[in-house]
C-alpha cells in the first residue's frame, strides 16, 4: 500500500500533475468555463507559461541542487536524514508554504514587485489554462523552490516528495473553474468539514476572490487571500476574507490585453500598449492611476 502511494506521488511530481491539468483543462474548456475569453493572445501566453518553465526552470533548479549546494554546503548532504517522516512533513509544509505566502504577498503589497506577478492576474478567467501563468522572472525567483531544494539536499527528500505533491493538488484545485467546494457550503452534513477546510487550505471560493477584478461587490478580494496551499496564514495575519461566494469577474480592471511576450518576459520585452503597466513609461501600479481619475 505504502509503495503504491509512494509511486503516485513520484509520478505526480513528474508527468502526473501536467496530465491532470490537461484533462481538467479540456473538461473546463468543453463545459465553456472560459466564457469565450480565451483569445489567441491569452492562449499563447498560457501555453508558453505551462511549457517553458518545465524546460528551462526545472533544469536550473536541478543544477542548483546537484552542483551548487555541494560547493556551498560541503559535508551537509543528508545531515538531517534522521528527521522522522511526519516531523519532516510538518517542517517542510510550513517552510515551503509560508515562504510562498510571503513571496506572493510582497508581490501584491510592494508596488515595484507587482509587475512581476501581474501576468498571473491578467487572465479574465479561472482554470487550468491560467494556473501556471506567470512572468518568467517571478518563476525563476520563486523563492521556496530553492528552500525546498536545499532541504532535499539536507536529507528531507522523502517528505518533500509528499508535501509538494499534496501542495500542487491543492493549489491546482483552487485555481480550477470547476467550483468543487460548493457542496461543502450547501450540503448540511458537509458544512462542518467545509468550515475547517476553507480556513485550512485554499479553495476555489477563497482563491477566486483573490483573482477578482473588483472588491466592490464584497466577494472579490484581490488585495488579500494570498495563501497557496494553506489559507491559515491569511487567517493568522488578517489578510483573508471568506464569503463562500465566487466573484462575477476575474482579471484586472485596467488590463490592456498586452502582447503575450511582454507579459511573459517583462522587463526584457515591453508592451506597446499605451498606458500599460508593462509599457516603457507605464505606471508601476495601474490601480493607482484608475483611483486618481
Amino acid at each position: 500500500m505504502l509503495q503504491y502511494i509512494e509511486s503516485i506521488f513520484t509520478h505526480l511530481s513528474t508527468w502526473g500533475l501536467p496530465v491532470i491539468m490537461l484533462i481538467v483543462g479540456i473538461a473546463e474548456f468543453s463545459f465553456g468555463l472560459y466564457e469565450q475569453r480565451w483569445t489567441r493572445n491569452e492562449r499563447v501566453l498560457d501555453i508558453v507559461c505551462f511549457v517553458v518553465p518545465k524546460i528551462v526552470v526545472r533544469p536550473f533548479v536541478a543544477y542548483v541542487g546537484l552542483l551548487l549546494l555541494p560547493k556551498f554546503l560541503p559535508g551537509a548532504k543528508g545531515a538531517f536524514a534522521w528527521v522522522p517522516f511526519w516531523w519532516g512533513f510538518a517542517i517542510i509544509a510550513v517552510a515551503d508554504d509560508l515562504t510562498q505566502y510571503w513571496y506572493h504577498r510582497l508581490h501584491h503589497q510592494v508596488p515595484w514587485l507587482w509587475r512581476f506577478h501581474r501576468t498571473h492576474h491578467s487572465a479574465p478567467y479561472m482554470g487550468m489554462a491560467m494556473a501556471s501563468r506567470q512572468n518568467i522572472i517571478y518563476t525563476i525567483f520563486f523563492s521556496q523552490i530553492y528552500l525546498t531544494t536545499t532541504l532535499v539536499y539536507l536529507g528531507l527528500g522523502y517528505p518533500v516528495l509528499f508535501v509538494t505533491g499534496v501542495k500542487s493538488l491543492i493549489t491546482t484545485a483552487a485555481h480550477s473553474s470547476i467550483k468543487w467546494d460548493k457542496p461543502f457550503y450547501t450540503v448540511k452534513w458537509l458544512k462542518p468539514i467545509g468550515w475547517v477546510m476553507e480556513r485550512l487550505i485554499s479553495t476555489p471560493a477563497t482563491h477566486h476572490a483573490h483573482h477578482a477584478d473588483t472588491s466592490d461587490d464584497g466577494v472579490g478580494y484581490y488585495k488579500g487571500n494570498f495563501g497557496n496551499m494553506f489559507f491559515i496564514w491569511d487567517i493568522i495575519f488578517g489578510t483573508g476574507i471568506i464569503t463562500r461566494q465566487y466573484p462575477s469577474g476575474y482579471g484586472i480592471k485596467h488590463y490592456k490585453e498586452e502582447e503575450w511576450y511582454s507579459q511573459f518576459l517583462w522587463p526584457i520585452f515591453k508592451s506597446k500598449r499605451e498606458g500599460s503597466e508593462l509599457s516603457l513609461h507605464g505606471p508601476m501600479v495601474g490601480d493607482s492611476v484608475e483611483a486618481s481619475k
Partner: protein
Amino acid sequence: MKLDKVTRNKITRDALISIFLFALPVLLMLLSFKISGQRPWKQQAATAKVSR
C-alpha cells in the same frame, strides 16, 4: 511609488510572527524528543559508523 507606512508596519509585524511560525514545527519536534527520550540523530550516526 512608495510603500505606505501602515502596510510597511504590518509587513514588519507579520514577518516577526513568521519567524516564530517557521521555527514552531522544529521546536515541537525537539520537545517531543525531550519528552519521549528519542535520539534519532544518534541512531543515524551509529548506522553510518557500522556501514563504514
